[in-house]
């Protein structure tokens, strides 16, 4: 066995993907790197060998190279410039790769397994030292080879950058299509690279505020079907959905607790005053967290589930406040640096908030330090909104505008990498990044 020499041998099993209605054959989103690191790591991902009887079932190397390029931290060598195509470690001539100024080379092959499965075997070498950095074997259902290839990219990315890869994760977003006579609103789940889009909900009335359950199996969202707002929780695999709040007035801004058992909501009840509540999904017990006549909304839980951060304009303009999630506590103000902070999302380490920040008349994504109360502006748009952290905490996805329409974008939390994720047609907005699978 190829990896018997190394202690890094790993086995991973890829389960079947959950099935949803396929939207269209191709990706609906296209990623463009607007700003990358100054010196991306030059890498070669050699086409994987295939020992099976017919054509290879999937081009693993092509997807791994694209993922790494899309990260803004790597630059892969075009296939036309590959001097050789080794598929085993013993065949790699490091001098060749050094001449091409490639620092890292990835090789591998696919081996058939019984029952419509394959093994992906891959190795990563440092071309300067000839040292093997990784050697793994991963079994996958043929139907899941795309996701398995994203996991290969995740593992390589983490090994080379120290940051967990998120290529195998999913995003959800709202797409608005005004091309027909009526406006269509769709809630879509896609792979993190925009491929494989699936429609979760399709409505002539507005859909907004999607939120992932922590296990990635459900989405909560607001729908205006029936001409009034209601909050739904929908299970992705089955398509079953439950209307969890259709009270008088506004039902909005759902956010799951980290254990998935509670849902923070904004309700206006009969008097039109928006306040933040927490609904226990099993018992349906509703706990009111805020009591202010101001607009209190856009709640989100801290990673430990003990606190809720939310937007309130109780002091004039909107600012971020925190309050104990079990109720009965006083809300305290978190942001002070400017006249507009809204729509908080807490970083995975619980130390920062991604917010919408008014930067001299421009609505931009800010990173607010929870303890210090200071805010740093990360983006350069005029109408940026809906920020949310990638599950590795290193990147923030958000909505912005380009060429007169709504597009998605992401920025690294250090501000060095900026990517734009545009819809092939129509407008996209309110992106949310799903959790990582535990593997």
């Amino acid at each position: 066995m190829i990896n018997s020499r190394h202690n890094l041998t790993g086995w991973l099993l890829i389960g079947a993907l959950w099935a949803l209605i396929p939207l269209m054959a191709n990706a609906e989103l296209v990623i463009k790197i607007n700003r990358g690191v100054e010196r991306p790591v030059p890498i070669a991902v050699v086409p994987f060998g295939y020992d099976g009887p017919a054509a290879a079932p999937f081009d693993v190397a092509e997807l791994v190279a694209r993922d790494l390029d899309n990260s803004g931290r790597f630059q892969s060598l075009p296939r036309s410039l590959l001097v050789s195509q080794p598929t085993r470690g013993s065949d790699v001539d490091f001098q060749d790769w050094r001449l091409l100024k490639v620092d890292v080379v990835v090789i591998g092959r696919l081996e058939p397994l019984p029952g419509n499965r394959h093994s992906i075997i891959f190795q990563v070498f440092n071309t300067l030292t000839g040292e093997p950095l990784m050697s793994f074997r991963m079994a996958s259902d043929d139907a899941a080879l795309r996701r398995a290839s994203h996991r290969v990219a995740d593992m390589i990315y983490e090994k080379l950058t120290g940051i967990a890869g998120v290529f195998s994760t999913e995003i959800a977003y709202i797409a608005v299509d005004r091309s027909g006579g009526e406006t269509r609103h769709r809630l879509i789940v896609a792979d993190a690279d925009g491929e494989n889009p699936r429609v979760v909900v399709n409505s002539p009335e507005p859909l907004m505020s999607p939120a992932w359950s922590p296990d990635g199996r459900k989405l909560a969202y607001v729908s205006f079907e029936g001409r009034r707002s209601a909050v739904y929780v929908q299970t992705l695999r089955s398509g079953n959905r439950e209307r969890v709040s259709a009270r008088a007035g506004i039902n909005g801004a759902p956010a799951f607790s980290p254990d998935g058992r509670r849902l923070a909501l904004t309700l206006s009840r009969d008097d039109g005053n928006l306040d933040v509540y927490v609904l226990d999904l099993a018992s349906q017990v509703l706990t009111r967290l805020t009591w202010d006549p101001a607009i209190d909304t856009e709640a989100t839980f801290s990673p430990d589930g003990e606190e809720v951060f939310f937007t309130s304009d109780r002091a004039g303009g909107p600012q971020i406040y925190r309050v104990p999630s079990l109720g009965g506590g006083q809300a305290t103000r978190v942001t002070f640096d400017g006249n507009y902070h809204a729509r908080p999302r807490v970083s995975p380490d619980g130390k920062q908030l991604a917010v919408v920040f008014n930067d001299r008349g421009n609505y931009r994504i800010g990173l607010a330090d929870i303890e210090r109360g200071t805010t740093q502006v990360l983006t350069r748009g005029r109408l940026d909104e809906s920020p949310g952290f990638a599950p590795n905490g290193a990147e923030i996805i958000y909505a912005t505008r380009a060429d007169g329409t709504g597009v998605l974008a992401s920025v690294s939390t250090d501000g060095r990498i900026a990517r734009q994720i545009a819809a092939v047609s129509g407008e996209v907005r309110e992106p949310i990044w799903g959790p990582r699978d535990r593997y």
Partner: protein
Amino acid sequence: MMNHRLSFVVTIFACSLFLSGCPGSSVVQPDTSGDGPPIDSAPELNNRDRGGVDGAQPFREDPLPDLLGDLVVYFEYDLSDIRSEFNAMLAAHGRYLANNPSANIRLEGHADERGSREYNIGLGERRAQAVRRVLLLQGASGTQISTVSYGEERPAILGSDEEAWKLNRRVELVYQQ
């Protein structure tokens, strides 16, 4: 009191007027085309000479038809204060509702696209509530009025400039059948 005929005309607005987010295919308006709410008939007065001064006659101000035809209230950025130019129009709608207890109205609050979406839902609701309070002050009943906020989700005008934004910060008055 009068026994008003509750005749409504369903006015079809071309969806293209709204460019997007046309709230349904029809808008219901109160009938202002002909015989609107009649004025209370004044009691017969003995019009004898009173030194040139006629007897006082009670009268009810007829809502001006063109004011009842106005169905949108616009707002300043981040505010829900009713601008004075909309006072007469809202007074007309409030009196119409007071005089027509079976009439129902739905107030749809909207915001421009700037800032966060759920906060804008709050702004739209606050605007709808501001309009609601004015209608109640004019004698409309709370049971006649429902509110909904669409925030920035249903712009009247697509565009990212002040011209579009000022037309999107609004409350639409929608009479229900």
